[in-house]
C-alpha cells in the first residue's frame, strides 16, 4: 500500500539492523520497553526481535487498552448488559475478556444484547436507531480513543439523545509509567514511546522520564521501520550518554500534541482519584470519568453498577507481564490453560496483548532463534 509499503521495506530494515550492531556495546545488556501494545504487535508480526543484536531485549509494557481492564469492570459491564432493555456496545476485542462470571460473548449467548461498535459514533447511531432501548457504550482506551468518545458525548448532548450513555473506562498513559518506574523490580534502559497517544498528548508528558528517572524515550510510529529506527535512536542516546525525549514519528507527533483533542477531553472528562489496572493495582489519577456536566450520560450513575472488585486469577501473571518483569512464555499458564481461544488473562485476549502476540507470531520465531541465543 502506498505510504505504508515504504515503512515495511525489508532492505531498509536490514540496513538499520546493521547500524544497530555497530552502535551496541557487546559487553552489556540492553532492556528497552515498548509501552504500546500496537508496537508489541508490530514487533511480533514482522519478527523484529530476530533483527536485533542478541544483547538487546524488548520488554512489553502496559499500553494495551484491553489488557489493563480489571475483571471487576468487565463484570460491571456484564451486569449493565443483563438489565432489561439495554443494548451494550463495545469494541470487538472486549467481547472475549473474562470477568468473574464469563465474558460479554457468553452474556450475549445467554440473551443479553451485546453488539460490536466500530467507533463511539457507531454506538450513538445504534442509540438513534433503537429509541426504545438504553444504549450503553463500554468505552476503553488511552488518550488515543478518549477524544472520539468525548466528541460523541458532545454530539449526544447536542442531539439530546437521551437513551445513550457511556460506561467510561478511559485511562491515561502517564500515571502507569510513573508507577512502573517507581516499582523496584523494573530495570530498563529506555522506552519506545507510544506514537498514537503522543499524536494527542504530544511529547511533553513524557519529559519526566529523562528528567526524573534518567531514561531516554523515543516516540515511534507503528510500521516495522519506525520501531527499528526508534530502537536505533535509543541505542545512540545510550552510546553518546544522552537522555532525552525524541520523536521518531515526526509525520504525526508534535511536542504540544493536538490542542483541539485535549480541549474536548478536558470538557467532557474529569480525573478519577483512583482506578484499578489489571495486574498493576490501584493507581491514583490514572483514569477518566465523565465530568459533572455530562453526568446524565454516565452509565455508572444511570444503572446500578455493582462496582465489585475481583482478584485476578491466582495462576494469572498478567501483572508481571505488563510490568515487563517476565516474558509471556515464562507465565505458568501461558499456552496451556491460557490460550487465545480460552484466555485466562487479558494479555491473551487482544491481538495487541503481549501474550496473544507472542502466541500468534512469536513462538516459532523464538524456537528457531533459540540455539544462537544460548549464553
Amino acid at each position, binding site marked *: 500500500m502506498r505510504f505504508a509499503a515504504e515503512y515495511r521495506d525489508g532492505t531498509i530494515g536490514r540496513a538499520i539492523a546493521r547500524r544497530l550492531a555497530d552502535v551496541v556495546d557487546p559487553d552489556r545488556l540492553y532492556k528497552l520497553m515498548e509501552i504500546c501494545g500496537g508496537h508489541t504487535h508490530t514487533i511480533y508480526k514482522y519478527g523484529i526481535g530476530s533483527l536485533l543484536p542478541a544483547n538487546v531485549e524488548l520488554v512489553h509494557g502496559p499500553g494495551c487498552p484491553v489488557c489493563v481492564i480489571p475483571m471487576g469492570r468487565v463484570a460491571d459491564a456484564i451486569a449493565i448488559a443483563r438489565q432489561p432493555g439495554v443494548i451494550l456496545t463495545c469494541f470487538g476485542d472486549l467481547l472475549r475478556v473474562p470477568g468473574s462470571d464469563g465474558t460479554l460473548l457468553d452474556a450475549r449467548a*445467554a440473551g443479553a444484547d451485546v453488539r460490536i461498535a466500530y467507533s463511539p459514533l457507531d454506538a450513538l447511531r445504534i442509540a438513534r436507531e433503537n429509541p426504545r432501548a438504553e444504549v450503553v457504550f463500554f468505552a476503553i482506551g488511552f488518550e488515543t480513543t478518549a477524544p472520539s468518545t468525548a466528541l460523541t458525548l458532545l454530539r449526544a448532548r447536542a442531539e439530546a439523545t437521551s437513551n445513550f450513555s457511556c460506561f467510561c473506562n478511559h485511562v491515561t498513559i502517564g500515571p502507569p509509567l510513573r508507577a512502573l518506574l517507581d516499582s523496584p523490580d523494573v530495570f530498563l534502559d529506555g522506552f519506545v514511546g507510544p506514537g498514537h497517544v503522543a499524536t494527542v498528548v504530544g511529547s511533553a508528558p513524557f519529559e519526566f522520564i529523562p528528567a526524573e528517572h534518567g531514561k531516554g524515550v523515543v516516540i515511534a510510529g507503528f510500521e516495522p521501520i519506525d520501531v527499528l529506527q526508534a530502537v536505533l535512536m535509543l541505542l545512540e542516546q545510550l552510546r553518546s550518554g544522552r537522555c532525552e525525549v525524541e520523536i521518531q514519528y515526526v509525520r504525526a507527533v508534535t511536542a504540544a500534541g493536538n490542542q483541539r483533542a485535549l480541549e474536548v477531553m478536558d470538557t467532557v472528562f474529569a480525573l478519577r482519584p483512583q482506578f484499578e489496572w489489571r495486574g498493576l493495582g490501584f493507581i491514583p489519577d490514572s483514569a477518566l470519568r465523565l465530568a459533572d456536566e455530562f453526568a446524565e450520560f454516565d452509565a455508572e450513575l444511570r444503572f446500578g453498577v455493582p462496582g465489585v472488585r475481583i482478584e485476578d486469577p491466582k495462576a494469572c501473571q498478567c501483572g508481571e507481564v505488563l510490568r515487563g518483569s517476565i516474558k509471556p*512464555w515464562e507465565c505458568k499458564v501461558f499456552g*496451556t490453560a491460557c490460550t487465545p*481461544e480460552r484466555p485466562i488473562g487479558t494479555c491473551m485476549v487482544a491481538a495487541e496483548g503481549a501474550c496473544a502476540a507472542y*502466541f500468534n*507470531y*512469536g513462538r*516459532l520465531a523464538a524456537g528457531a532463534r533459540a540455539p544462537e541465543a*544460548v549464553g
Partner: protein
Amino acid sequence: MSAGGEQAALERIDRARRRPRAFRDTHITTAHGAGGKATHELIERLLVPVLGGGEQLAALADAAVLGVGGTSVAMTTDSFVVRPLRFPGGSIGELAVNGTVNDLAMVGAAPLALTLSLVLEEGLETEALRQEIAAAAAAAKSAGIEIVAGDTKVVGRDAADGMYICTTGIGILDPRAALSPAGARPGDRLLVSGPIAEHGVAVMLARGEFELGAAVCSDTRSLWPAVAALLDACPGGLRSLRDPTRGGVASALNELAQASGTAIVVQEELVPLAPAVGGACELLGIDPMYVACEGRLLAIVAAEEAGVALAALRSVEGGDEAAEIGAVEPDPAGIVLVQTAFGSRRVLDMLVGDPLPRIC
C-alpha cells in the same frame, strides 16, 4: 533469559495443542459459526463423536464420496444465512448454488444436481424472493447443473433474517481425481486461483456499518471450471484442493497442514490482494488471510506440475490473477508459516473468534 526455558515452554504449548479435549463451551456463540478454531472444536469434539463418526464424516472433507453401483458419487450439504441478502457482486441465491457446487468441486466431483430448501421469514417481499430464485436458477444454468428438488418453510417475523437457504448437492467423482486434505508432501507448491478476501470485505462493506466507500465485489463463482482445467492439465500432480470460505486462507491452510502433517509456508508478498481490499482490511485491523472467499481455490500440486497447473488456472474465466504463493515443507508439522516481505517468518494460526459474522 534462558533459551532452554523458552524452548521447554514452546514444547509444552505444542503438547497442549495436540491433546484431544471434550467440548467445554456451555452455549453456542457466533464464534462457533466463524469457520475457525471454535467451529472445528464443535465439529470434532461434539458433532462427529455424537453422530458416531463414520469414516466419511471423520475425514471432514468438503463432500463425502459414496460408491453407488460402480460409480463414485460425491454428496454435500450447505446452508446460507448471509446478511444482507444482496451485496456487490452477488446475492444469497447465487451464493447458495456456487457454494454447493464448490464443495463438490473441491473433492474432484463434476456437479450434477442440487436441492434447494428455503426458510422464509414472514414479511419477506415476494419480489426479493423472486430475485433470489432467479439468481439461483442463473447460477445453476451457468454451472451446468439442475435444481431437482426443494422445500419451503415459513417462520414468524424475527425468527429468520429475510431468508435462509439450505442445499444438498451431488456430483460424479472425476476418475482422474485423487484428492485428499492429507495429500500435501514436502516440496509441493501452493497455488491460489485469484485475489483473496473479496467476498468477506464486499459483504461487510455492504452492511454500511463502516462508512467506507470502497468498490469491492464478491468473488462468488463456480470453481468447477478451474478444477476441470487442473484435472486436464496435471491429474497426477494434484494433491489437495480447498476453497477458503469462512476462516479464510489461514484456516483452510491450517486444515491442510494438520491433515497432512506438513508445514505450509506462504510468501506474503506473492498473495494476490486488490488494493481496495487490502486497504479496507488495514483500516479495520483485520488480516485478509482470515477473510472469506466464495470463488477462489487453494491447490497443493507437485512441484514439477506447478507451472502447468498455474497456466491451467489462468486459462479459465476469472483466473488471470492466479498465483503460486508458497510451498510445503516437512517441519514444523501441522503449522502454517508466513514469510513476510520484511524477511521474517511468523505463525499463521487458524481463526480465533469471529471478526465478521454472517458472511455466507
